[in-house]
């Protein structure tokens, strides 16, 4: 279970998070929605320790994230970055097997390659892509490789940062379905941040709306369309008029 309790974060004068409180139960898929620049990425970077919150507490299974063995903590996570963030200097399979080639989860090279190829197959890529470099792949293929890397070490918690940004609608649908299948099949706890409503409907068990640095609404995806929260209604219907200023 992931718990954020009154998390604050400012960059200089700009207060990005003003008291985020959110609970993601174990095995649930939570999707955080909100406009660009509302602090969605900062929220998950705070959970991962990539950004240090100014105030508040973040707990994973009741344990504060800033204490204990950092490597063991990070070994529980997988993350798909917005631009896939593949390492240009490594081949596709070396990217996927990155964690399996070094550190505590290190395995023999042949075994790591085999696992990488199996994970690539799981995301719909052929074994021939294993020896290509990321620059030789299309945007959709890079996202799939990023997804394969995120799940390679069978993490308990997976984060997806704007998984469909920059993809055509068909590829976005493929990625959404893959994420849903993988999260269900692994039983992982997932947090996805997106402003793509098709992703929300495909991936989410629960939805949280982040605006002005706080969670404005949280609830099951089935209740999202019928809820009376003006922020959620403006966002999911893409209206220019409403409590959220169109020009921020």
């Amino acid at each position: 279970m992931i718990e954020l309790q009154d998390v604050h974060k400012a960059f200089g004068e700009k207060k990005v998070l003003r008291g985020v409180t959110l609970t993601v139960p174990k095995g649930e898929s939570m999707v955080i929605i909100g406009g660009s620049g509302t602090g969605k990425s900062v929220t998950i970077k705070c959970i991962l320790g990539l950004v240090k919150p100014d105030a508040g507490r973040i707990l994973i299974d009741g344990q504060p994230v800033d204490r204990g063995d950092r490597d063991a903590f990070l070994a529980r996570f997988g993350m798909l970055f917005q631009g896939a963030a593949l390492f240009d200097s490594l081949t596709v399979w070396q990217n996927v097997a990155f964690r399996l080639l070094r550190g505590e989860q290190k395995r023999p090279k042949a075994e790591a390659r085999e696992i990488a190829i199996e994970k690539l197959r799981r995301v719909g890529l052929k074994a021939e892509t294993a020896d290509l470099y990321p620059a030789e792949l299309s945007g959709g293929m890079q996202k799939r490789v990023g997804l394969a890397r995120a799940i390679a070490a069978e993490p308990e918690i997976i984060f997806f940062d704007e998984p469909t940004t920059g993809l055509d609608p068909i590829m976005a649908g493929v990625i959404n379905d893959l994420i849903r299948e993988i999260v269900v099949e692994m039983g992982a706890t997932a947090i996805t941040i997106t402003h793509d409503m098709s992703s929300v409907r495909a991936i989410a068990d629960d939805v949280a709306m982040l605006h002005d640095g706080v969670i404005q609404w949280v609830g099951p995806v089935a209740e999202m369309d019928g809820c009376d929260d003006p922020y959620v209604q403006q966002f999911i219907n893409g209206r220019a008029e409403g409590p959220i200023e169109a020009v921020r």
Partner: protein
Amino acid sequence: MSAALLRRPLAAIGRPVLAGLASVGRMAIFALQVLGHLVRPPFYLREFGHAIMTIGWYSLPVVGLTALFTGGALALQIYDGSSRFSAEAAVPSIVAIGMVRELGPVLGGLMVAARVASSIAAEIGTMKVTEQIDALVTLSTNPIKYLAVPRVLAATLTVPVLVAVGDSIGIMGGWLVGVNRLDFNSAAYLKNTIDFLEAADVASGIAKGAVFGFIVALMGCFYGMNSGRGAQGVGKATKLAVVASSVLILGSNYLLTEVFFSG
């Protein structure tokens, strides 16, 4: 009103001074972190080997050419100067001493700064803006250990070798010009070079090379990891890495020369 007017120029001076000092502090902390990780496992041998090739091996042509032309020009200059008081015989020894003590390490270091500090800063800066550094952290890999340590260690070990090779090529440049343009006897030129050159001259230049290599890679990594956003951020990081490493090479060269040869 007048106090506020007075404060404005003082603030304009104070702000960049404070920012500069903060930057020096961050640089020093970064250097200590790199040194700390240097002696603690895990060690990334593949990355170290790759850095040896890109920093050391591929810098050989540019360092060699720089040394060759510098050695030749030095011979011409010293011949012209020394002929004014009939001391042309000193050309081989002064070329050799000038190359191994000063020009070999300094020009070699500056060429490596231009070639290596820029490429390290651009590569790591691009990794930062494309979230590859964040990805490393989420994959339980310390970016300083994985990116900076192999590069800094490789540069510290290979730049002295580059300096030694550059010294030899520079002396050869002087010999080529001496024999072909200035009518020196080939054997006498070489004997004169060897007789006057001391081991301490060569060792001081090589020690300078190690310090310059450390500076170049450290600045490339530091500015790359602190790169701003977008293409402009990476461009600025690259420029600052080259400027900072060049200035630090020249400054530390003076200090090292004081340490090695004063008194």
